[in-house]
């Protein structure tokens, strides 16, 4: 597979992901990873809020179901801080600023005891006012081979969302890209009529849940080393290729659909795309709870 350098602006400029602001060339790699704090407690709502986010992504190339209404892809290299935090996690949301019961999806660890007192977790897909925790799309009350979160392990993860119609979306989360065989993934065939339809206002949020004040903090509780977000659904083969090298866009599909990504972070505010799209996330972190740490 040919590699496309992150500095090859001429190639990337042709991509569907496009440029938000004219963009400079790729930045190669950052020297650090981002460290997100743990929950203070499982039920806490008073601690500071610290996230990186991109608001109104639907107006900048990334609607909830992707640029072509066909889906999207997120690939990341992370580590959950050991031991697990107490309660819920929020490590990637496409969501609204308050909880409406709809118009959101994401992938995170989920407490095995279904409570904000939980200290052991499974990997989950969250959408449709529910949580799905295995390859059959079962909910936490009836799991079949759920994938256990091993805090302290560095993982490259793949999240592919496809949309085939207003009442048919498939969300698939591979929590460890080194083994994508059944049952080592989580999959939800979302058939709730009209779920997320109508191009709602969306923000991409990494680090907590924006509705924490109404429920509880759901912090990232870990390290984010690298990420690629594509505004089209990649094939698993292409996603695996992209996951194997954050220093480049390794597939033509990936180069055409890159929306935003980072290959390391030089500072907590180094949030401009490493792959030359020109887009930048914003740090919402008035108490400076985010920090940098050694790359994974």
């Amino acid at each position, binding site marked *: 597979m040919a590699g496309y350098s992150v500095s090859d602006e001429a190639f990337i400029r042709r991509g569907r992901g496009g440029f938000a602001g004219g963009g400079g060339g790729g930045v190669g790699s950052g020297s650090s990873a981002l460290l997100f704090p743990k929950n203070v407690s499982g039920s806490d709502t008073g601690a500071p809020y610290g996230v990186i986010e991109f608001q109104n992504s639907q107006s900048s190339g990334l609607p909830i179901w992707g640029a072509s209404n066909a889906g999207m892809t997120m690939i990341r290299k992370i580590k959950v801080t050991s031991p697990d935090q107490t309660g*819920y996690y929020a490590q990637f949301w496409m969501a609204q600023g*308050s909880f409406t019961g709809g118009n959101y999806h994401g992938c995170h660890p989920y407490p095995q005891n*279904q*409570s904000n007192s939980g200290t052991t977790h499974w990997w989950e897909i969250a959408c*449709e*006012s529910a949580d799905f925790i295995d390859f059959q799309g079962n909910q936490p009350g009836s799991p079949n081979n759920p994938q256990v979160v091993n805090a302290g392990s560095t993982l490259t993860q793949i999240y592919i969302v496809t949309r085939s119609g207003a009442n048919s979306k498939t969300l698939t989360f591979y929590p460890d890209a080194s083994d994508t065989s059944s049952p080592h993934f989580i999959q939800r065939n979302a058939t*709730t009529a009209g779920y997320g339809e109508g191009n709602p206002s969306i923000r991409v949020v990494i680090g907590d849940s924006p509705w924490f004040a109404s429920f509880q903090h759901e912090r990232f509780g870990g390290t984010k080393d690298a990420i690629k977000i594509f505004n089209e659904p990649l094939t698993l083969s292409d996603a695996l290729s992209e996951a194997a090298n954050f220093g480049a866009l390794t597939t033509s599909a990936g180069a055409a659909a890159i929306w935003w990504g980072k290959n390391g972070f030089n500072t907590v505010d180094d949030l401009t795309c490493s792959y030359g799209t020109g887009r930048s996330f914003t740090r919402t972190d008035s108490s400076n709870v985010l920090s940098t740490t050694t790359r994974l």
Partner: protein
Amino acid sequence: MSEKVWLQMPAGVERIDCPDGTVVYASARFHWKIRLDRDSVKHQAAMAAGAVEIEDPNEAS
């Protein structure tokens, strides 16, 4: 369009299969609070399962 209302589901009821084949989901993450169309089959099924109408949790915070 029917009015959307918030319901408090009984704790632990994570799904209700409705007579029309649709499903009502709820989650501990959201404290078993859900939002449905008041005149819908889902609303009827949730109420039959013991749900009660509540204020918008986003307003209550």
